[in-house]
């Protein structure tokens, strides 16, 4: 089976390309707007260029959409991709969506929960992308939509490195009620296994099947923060007042973001700057949303990575790359899977 992975240099995409390469039953074509990683069958594609998309889709059996980036890359990108796939005769699509499509809903949510793009531009773009996937299915495509929670594991810039650095700086800790939301953490390998299972599934009838992805044992945020702090030695963990978090996100956030953007022009300097705490994280950490991934467990036959295993792997990766950083070696390039 020939599989085209769009967003192949991102956190999930890169790992997926490696797993597909080693699968024995798939050939992966790893498409990215950036330079492809060494060792995989890479291809530079601008996903907003319909002609380039059509060329990349020629002879492809299935396409996996892991594209991250701006609202238009996610929303219009999905429109162009689904149209190009139909035109090229590629009828199988695995689309990586996000739990952001559930909007501000709380409680334990399964895939029947209606979509709501009201939580910012990212959620709106993800909802729009899912609408294009639905249109694709209506025209005969067989689509699997995966809605992961927070994708973590070794190499996760967002949910391991950023959190760990905030913990080390004493800007994150036990947040009390402000950190009582469910983390919905899901290991990057589990997301990739879900993609593989979706690709291997013999059921290629037209339609959309959606799956929530979150490890059933993923804890509440406070528990994750304390566990990660203990695992990387950022102790004693501090109990932080909600006001401090708000000031950090709202007052320190904008200037830090400007510094970060400026520092991107100077290679290697970004990791020496304090991390930005985006205000939308504050809402995420207190949201009582628990993804119900029962359907994925059952239909995709997923064996979830145990929380403790993922935690130890992630902490070890973080400490190792921090040691490497101190010795002046370049840290490996890490993609990002969502803007939160």
């Amino acid at each position, binding site marked *: 089976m020939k599989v085209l992975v769009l967003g192949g240099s991102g956190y999930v995409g890169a790992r997926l390309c490696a797993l597909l390469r080693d699968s024995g039953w798939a050939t992966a074509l790893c498409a990215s707007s950036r330079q492809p990683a060494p060792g995989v069958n890479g291809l530079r594609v601008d996903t907003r260029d319909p002609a380039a998309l059509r060329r990349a889709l020629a002879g492809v059996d299935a396409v996996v959409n892991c594209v991250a980036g701006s609202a238009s890359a996610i929303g219009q990108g999905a429109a162009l991709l689904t149209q190009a796939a139909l035109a090229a005769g590629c009828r199988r699509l695995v689309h990586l969506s996000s739990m952001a499509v*559930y909007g501000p*809903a*709380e*409680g*334990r*949510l*399964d895939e*029947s*929960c*209606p979509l709501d793009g009201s939580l910012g531009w990212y959620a709106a773009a993800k909802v729009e992308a899912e609408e294009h996937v639905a249109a694709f299915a209506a025209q005969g495509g067989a689509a699997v939509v995966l809605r992961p929670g927070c994708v973590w594991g070794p190499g996760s810039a967002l949910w391991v490195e950023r959190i760990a650095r905030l913990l080390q700086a004493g800007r994150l*800790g*036990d947040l*009390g*009620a402000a950190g*009582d939301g469910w983390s919905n953490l899901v290991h990057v390998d589990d997301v990739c296994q879900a993609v593989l299972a979706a690709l291997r599934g013999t059921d290629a009838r037209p339609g959309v099947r959606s799956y929530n992805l979150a490890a059933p044992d993923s804890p509440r945020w406070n*528990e994750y923060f*304390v566990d990660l*702090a*203990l695992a990387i030695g950022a*102790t*004693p*963990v*501090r*109990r*932080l*007042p909600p006001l401090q978090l708000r000031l950090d996100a709202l007052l320190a956030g904008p200037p830090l973001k400007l510094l970060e953007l400026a520092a991107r022009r100077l290679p290697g300097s970004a990791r020496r700057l304090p991390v930005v705490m985006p205000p939308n994280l504050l809402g995420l950490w*207190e949201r*009582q949303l628990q993804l119900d991934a*029962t359907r994925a467990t059952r239909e995709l036959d997923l064996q979830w990575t145990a929380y403790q295993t993922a935690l130890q792997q992630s902490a070890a990766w973080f400490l190792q790359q921090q040691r490497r950083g101190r010795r002046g070696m370049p840290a490996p390039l890490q993609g990002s899977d969502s803007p939160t």
Partner: protein
Amino acid sequence: MILDADTVEHGACLHTDVCVVGGGAAGISLALALSGRGLSIVLLESGRMAEDAATQALYAGEVADERLHSPADKYRQRCLGGSTATWGGRSMPFDPIDFETRSQVPASGWPISYEDLLPFYPQANALAEAGRFAYDAGEALGATAPPLVRGFASDVVRTDGLERFSCPTNFGRRYERRLRVAPDIRVLLGANCTGIALRPDGRSVRELAVATLAGRRFRVAARATVLAMGGLETARLLLASRDVAPQGVGNEHDVVGRYYMCHIAGNVGTLVFNGRPQDVRHGYEITPEGIYCRRRLAIVPAEQRRHGLANCVARLHFSRITDPRHRNGVLSGLFLARKFISYEYGKRLHDGNDPTAGVYARHLWNVVTDPFDTTTFLAHWVARRTLAQRKFPSVILRNRTNRFSLEMHGEQIPRADSRVTLTERTDALGLPRLRIDWRYSREDIESMGRTLDLIAQELERSGAGRLDYDRATLEEDLLRFGAYGGHHIGTARMGSDPRTSVVDADCRVHSVDNLFVAGSAAFPTSSQANPTLTLIALALRLGQHLAVRLGPAQAAHVPGVAP
């Protein structure tokens, strides 16, 4: 979800799987533990989110001897979160010996063991925000953590046991959102349970009568009813529900309300360590997960048995605050500020004697002549307690002289004549008010005396220090402020014999098939430990029992959530 009871239709009957009466530490823990297990839960809470005088007044009652017990409406709060609103946060488990039947403690012995409760303690610690379930200093703080006193090693007196501190966590505020979001929990605020209506044969609960202060009345019919109203109100409601059982529900053998216990506590003696002040760790340590904790002195179980002692702990403490001879500016400052400190926390600043002008002057002099310590203390207090989310647990003074007193906290021997009863007077909803007659035993004081003797003997043997106390004033020292406030224990005690207990090992009322008690009312003995952590653990264990007893075969799945 959280609703106001005044929105329930007057005269309605709400049907549910489990009705929990009381939204304090036990009730909230239980409701959260039952959530997501395929059951519907109604939680009745008398108060609302904040304290309110008319609701609080429902607590008022009589006290037999006001020197021995605080008024009935103190140390308790009628609001969501219950008395965790005034809680000090001290959190530690009971000891294995507490569950044993001990010859030195008549009427002791639980129908369950420490091991039965152990699986629920880690979750109780998490709910109380008291960190890991690790109560050995080496385990919690690391092997290199300094000891309580360098140079003091003893096989009789243990000093590596810890007490941990909750924030203290107000369960109402902390878990409000979880309760709101849970699709299977209905919290009704302002809902006062005024009676348990039994079926005519008296063997099961038919329904509960509920009233609001605004005059609305409705009923709740549940497959299982749990009373989680604290050690005083639980007995009150059982005794006041007399329509089918004239002596009160579960009271066939006149046990409800009896065996009422608090703790025997007070500051005793003068302890002087021989080494350097920096070799004594009298204050708080912080565990890696950020929890304040503190070491205590305790007699090891074998020696408790050998010497016939009740369980007790001792903490290193400063001298009596009210006596200006301590010449400490901080303590005198506390004394002078006592009018501004709440009843519950200021109680030990009022020792009964009206201070003379001379005493005031000497306290003032202490403050003026000790300005550095006083301001340092104030700055620390404001930063680490007033403004902090996780509060520094109590006043700790700099140790300059290696002189301390011992703050004792011990169990009391259960006695049937220490009890709460109903009076003829009623509250605004017609429920009879309580009369509290708390009593202690000479043996309680003697046990504490022998405990002090053992500590003194071990200090002297090891050469670590010297403890002096006056045996003649020991009873006065321990009873100066009466029963330790807020620990209301034993009025619906657990046991296997219905003649000496009210509930069984599953916390079920012996004579009523579907009525349960959660909380310290069910404790048969009081332990050295403060009751909160254990009553949470016991409530979680009850949750597990109810989920199995009532639950569908496949648990752990909540019906689809309507977003």
